């Protein structure tokens, strides 16, 4: 039995070798630019800034996955970023203290190393916690929340409240977390002097490579059956249930992956920028990255990465010229993108490519 089509249907052009190689070609070009050209051309200060943008791009990648693909508007990624950052920061502080108490604890009148800190002296434990702590928290939260079918704006507000609460917790525990100042004054990482340009250049390469690998991994996930399922959950969670899948599990796994990425980014942020503090991971920084992902294009992973780098660069450049004006420009950009190009820069590029084909 054949059923006739009623509407004429535009056939998608068959994938030729040209269209098939386009993606890898772009990726390779960007990789060469990031790994070879940038370290050669940029002065150390600018390269350090680029490293920071790329760190944020890792968080953005996770947001792209959770929000763009999975429809979960995560407004509190700063929490996971912070968990990763503090895990790394605690380890660096302990190494630097060489068996004594970290400096800020002495100033706060703490006399004995808190039990929470002890295992972080072990680099393997600290590095594992960088990823595992955020993933565990996200899994616990997701299991609780998604099973109760909390979604949409309610979920978004919940994550944001979590970020706000996390900041209050960090500030309140002065002796344990360094309070408002956070953890800073890092001098070395695995025996390397962090003040050296050479160390910072290696760090930049590490960040770029980690971002590249995570991007490829996330892309693989998006193109897998799981990725199709994730999109299906985004567009029709109830329908997915009647296909025999539990959407809560799919969402929890994705949320945990995005949290793990944010944690890893937080850990890389610490040696690159030299500080981790509550101000860097509260509601505002969390929102800024969501805005960046929206501007770059949340439905494409590359758009999320691009958004983080572009907005990071724009923030630095603009703030150098007009201090304090950035917030308005950022808000205006967000409104502009949301009303005129809801698919962001990536959506505009894709549309142009289709038109020129």
């Amino acid at each position, binding site marked *: 039995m054949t059923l006739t089509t009623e509407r004429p*249907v535009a056939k998608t052009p068959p994938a030729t070798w040209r269209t098939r190689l386009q993606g890898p070609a772009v990726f390779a070009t960007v990789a060469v630019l990031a790994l070879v050209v940038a370290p050669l051309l940029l002065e150390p200060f600018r390269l350090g800034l680029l490293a920071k943008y790329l760190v944020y791009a890792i968080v953005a990648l996770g947001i792209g996955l959770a929000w763009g693909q999975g429809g979960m508007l995560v407004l509190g990624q700063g929490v996971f970023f912070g968990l990763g950052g503090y895990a790394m920061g605690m380890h660096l502080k302990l190494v630097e203290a060489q068996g004594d108490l970290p400096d800020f604890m002495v100033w706060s009148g703490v006399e004995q190393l808190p039990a929470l800190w002890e295992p972080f002296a072990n680099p393997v434990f600290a590095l594992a916690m960088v990823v595992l702590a955020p993933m565990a928290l996200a899994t616990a939260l997701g299991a609780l929340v998604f099973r109760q079918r909390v979604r949409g704006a309610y979920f978004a507000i919940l994550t944001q409240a979590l970020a706000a609460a996390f900041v209050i917790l960090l500030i309140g525990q002065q002796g344990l977390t360094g309070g408002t100042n956070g953890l800073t004054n890092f001098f070395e990482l695995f025996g390397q002097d962090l003040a050296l340009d050479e160390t910072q250049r290696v760090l930049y390469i590490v960040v770029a490579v980690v971002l590249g690998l995570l991007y490829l991994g996330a892309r*693989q996930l998006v193109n897998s*059956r799981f990725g199709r399922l994730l999109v299906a959950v985004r567009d029709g969670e109830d329908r997915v249930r009647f*296909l*025999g899948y539990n959407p809560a599990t799919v969402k929890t796994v994705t949320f945990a992956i995005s949290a793990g990425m944010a944690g890893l980014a937080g850990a890389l942020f610490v040696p690159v920028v030299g500080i981790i503090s509550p101000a860097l991971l509260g509601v505002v920084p969390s929102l800024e990255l969501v805005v960046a992902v929206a501007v770059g294009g949340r439905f494409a992973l590359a758009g999320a990465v691009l958004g983080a780098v572009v907005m990071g660069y724009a923030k630095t450049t603009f703030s150098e010229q007009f201090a304090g004006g950035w917030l308005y420009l950022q808000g205006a950009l967000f409104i502009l993108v949301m009303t005129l190009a809801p698919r962001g820069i990536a959506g505009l590029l894709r549309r142009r490519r289709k038109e020129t084909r």
Partner: protein
Amino acid sequence: MTALLEIRDLSVVFDGFTAIDGVDLTVDQGELRFLIGPNGAGKTTLIDVITGLTKPAAGAVRFGADDLTGRKEHEIVRLGVGRTFQTSVIFEELTVVENLDLAASFRRPLWALAGRRRGISEAVEHALTTTGLDELANEHARVLSHGQRQWLEIGMLLAQRPRLLLLDEPVAGMSLDERSRTGELLTEIAKDHTVIVVEHDMDFLRRYASQVTVLHEGRVLTEGSVEEVRANPKVQEVYLGRAREEADDAVR
């Protein structure tokens, strides 16, 4: 014949309103059963209870050896009960074949979904040919017409190889041509599946139904072949009491 679905003394209450009131229904293995009744008779509610969307106030729903009441929607699907909705809800951002593949993969553990789809599985191939959507396999589902969407949804059910299919008004909003094609599809499916169809359309019923259960105000009014049901004075009365046109349709 063994009973596949056995509903006993089922009641559903919404905020004090009794939508289903002591319904008994038995559907045998391999049967094609039509559920009809005027608006508000409780047809869709009955389907909702079987599939776990609505919790009953009292009564039992047995499916083979399992009790379905109190189970979650996806668990019931995993036991082998599939359904469509009045308004088709396919995944527009996925292609036709991806929609089918997603439906067919539901028994795989989650980690096994991490790989890319390579080629087309047998179940998907079968669903494509049965529904006649082969030509559109790689198109995004959003370009499909209303009828094609319904067929895709039925195809997704088939790809899951369910033991019981529940179709909620499959021909609502379809053109005459689409209706008869859906009828052919239904006949084809009913050959090797147990199917329950909720339908309003009397013409469709006359052409494709054999066994019919009539619901009225939450109760089973009568059961039997199409001829028996149409000849039943109580059925005529129910439809007469409702709307002249519908009644003419039903008894003609």
